[in-house]
């Protein structure tokens, strides 16, 4: 996994609450058996005026000029600012894959759905939780200033703006450790293989019906 330490980038808005994972990446693109290539279809139904299909040449599709990610002022954005309960609905990891593939490294919102939040950390995308008022304040500043950018400093757990403002944020220690070091958590878990085997043995003795072939 790509590590995340300090990142500076342009902030783009997704100014609505309860953005669901169907909106982040519509179902027709989930037919891919790959992990990459979802970026061009991020927010597909909002970004384009027609219905997208997998495998299509997206450069020929009509863009929705009202959608912020299509506007020059947000070109190259890598930090997504949004409202509460972002990523609700389906567990599809294609949602953070699409965000990451598009170029987003960080999402800032007042809250997230649990599974999406979890999936972000597995893909080098940092979901930051800030109070609703702070998020509203950032929205105002972003709309007011073209090219508004922020620096996300994960080791220091703070967000810095060009004007010198510093916003601290919380992140779980273990998740931070994995993200900063780009760690593969399967490798970490398998360091506990002996403990897993020992548990499994006891568990089978207590609940023998949980073990046995399904063939």
């Amino acid at each position: 996994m790509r590590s995340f330490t300090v990142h500076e980038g342009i902030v783009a808005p997704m100014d609505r609450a309860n953005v669901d994972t169907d909106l982040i990446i519509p179902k027709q693109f989930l037919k891919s058996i790959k992990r990459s290539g979802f970026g061009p279809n991020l927010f597909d139904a909002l970004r384009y005026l027609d219905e997208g299909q997998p495998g299509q040449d997206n450069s020929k599709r009509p863009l929705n000029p009202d959608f912020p990610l299509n506007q020059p002022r947000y070109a190259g954005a890598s930090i997504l600012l949004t409202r509460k309960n972002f990523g609700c609905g389906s567990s599809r990891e294609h949602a953070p894959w699409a965000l990451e593939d598009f170029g987003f490294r960080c999402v800032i919102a007042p809250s997230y759905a649990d599974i999406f939040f979890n999936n972000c950390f597995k893909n080098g995308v940092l979901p930051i939780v800030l109070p609703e008022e702070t998020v509203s304040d950032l929205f105002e500043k972003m709309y007011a200033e073209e090219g508004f950018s922020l620096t996300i400093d994960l080791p220091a757990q703070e967000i810095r703006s060009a004007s010198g403002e510093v916003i601290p944020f919380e992140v779980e220690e273990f998740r931070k450790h994995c993200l900063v070091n780009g760690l593969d958590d399967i490798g970490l878990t398998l360091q506990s293989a002996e403990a897993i085997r020992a548990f499994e043995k006891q568990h089978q003795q207590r609940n023998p019906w949980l073990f046995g072939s399904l063939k």
Partner: protein
Amino acid sequence: MAGQTLYDKLWQQHLVESHPDGTSLLYIDRHLLHEVTSPQAFEGLRLAGRKPWRLDANLAVSDHNVPTTTAERAGGVEGIIDPISRLQVQTLGDNCSDFDIVEIPINDRRQGIVHVVGPEQGATLPGMTVVCGDSHTSTHGALGALAHGIGTSEVEHVLASQCLSTKKMKNMLVRVDGQLQKGVTAKDLALAIIGKIGTAGGTGYAIEFGGEAVRSLSMEGRMTLCNMSIEAGARAGMVAVDDTTIEYVKGRTYAPKGEQWEQAVAAWSELHSDDDAVFDAVVEMRAEDIQPQVTWGTSPEMVLPIDGLLPDPDSFDSETARESVRRALEYMGLKAGMPITDIKPDRIFIGSCTNSRIEDLREAAAVVRGKQVAASVKQALVVPGSGEVKAQAEAEGLDKIFVEAGMEWREPGCSMCLAMNADKLGDGEHCASTSNRNFEGRQGFGGRTHLVSPAMAAAAAVAGHFVDVRNWQEGA
């Protein structure tokens, strides 16, 4: 020491180890796989040179992409017309062969929606930890199991280590006292709960559903309720084990037999919250107050009782909420103040992991028996949750009732719930759907979903608009 909740017990019984910050390894008993969220996980195993930790914990079945017309289904995997869908279904088969994982093939009688198949085959049991790369895995909590959805990286993690690296959730009790009125179902209860606590109300919690109304539900009803807990933000929903649970599990293909059955039943009898258990949050509701529910917007919390009027955006207190309601009304092509009963569905969908079990089909069939789908309805699909459900329904003659009423009787799969196959809404079409999500575009580009119970969907099919199934008579 305070007593334990059902969730506390299930967590403790599967805890391998815990780190000081609470990050824990939780042992997984059953891992269900489907074609959409597993290919990248198998690929990850291959790239890392890893093998599944325990083969017999895994069970795979294709459901999201499979065609539901009998003609297209007849050709098996090779007969799937959409080449991208076909490749995904084929890839699950290939991966299961390569890694020696049991897969139920698409034209096997046991095939169906993974969350219908698991309990039906006894592959998910009380006391288990169950995960699947699908958010509606919460369904299996109805058996008194700890069950929730995971992402694809976690699918790979569970395949490789039989564990999930996770943190304990908080405990929420949703207690529903009293009895549901006749014609009001588990689906209405689920929607009413979501309407009350919101789509983020359960975020960070495992929900236990309790109270008289929940204990009175059949296993099918409990599955519908637990299925929708993710729509209230809670990854896991569960119901304590009782005689209804034991009765349901007994005799199923993978359920324990003989001496092990006795041993299992004794262990399962502990699977309820202690009387003095402490919950972090408690939500109380009266079952009698709940009416048939219909969603009007683009989030499951945008729901009203059947006699409701669509809300006025200006009546909400925050700009974010006003904007959400405005956008939802616009997307849905509806106006503030309009009665729910004026909404006319173009299509009807009875199916999905929420409502495609035998009891759901019986309820819908009872409503349409001897009647006709309204001329204004373009299509009414009935998609059983599994081949077993389909066979049972046909044995009871339900398929004939649906077909005689002008509905289509299909092969099992996820179908129009998320429209990954050919079953989808056209741009701007309204659908009375027994599925679980009314998000923008969920059932097709520009499609407009109204979530309802099977009986309410069936009644809307005949009436041509939403009606209160409790007192509705055709022609009245």
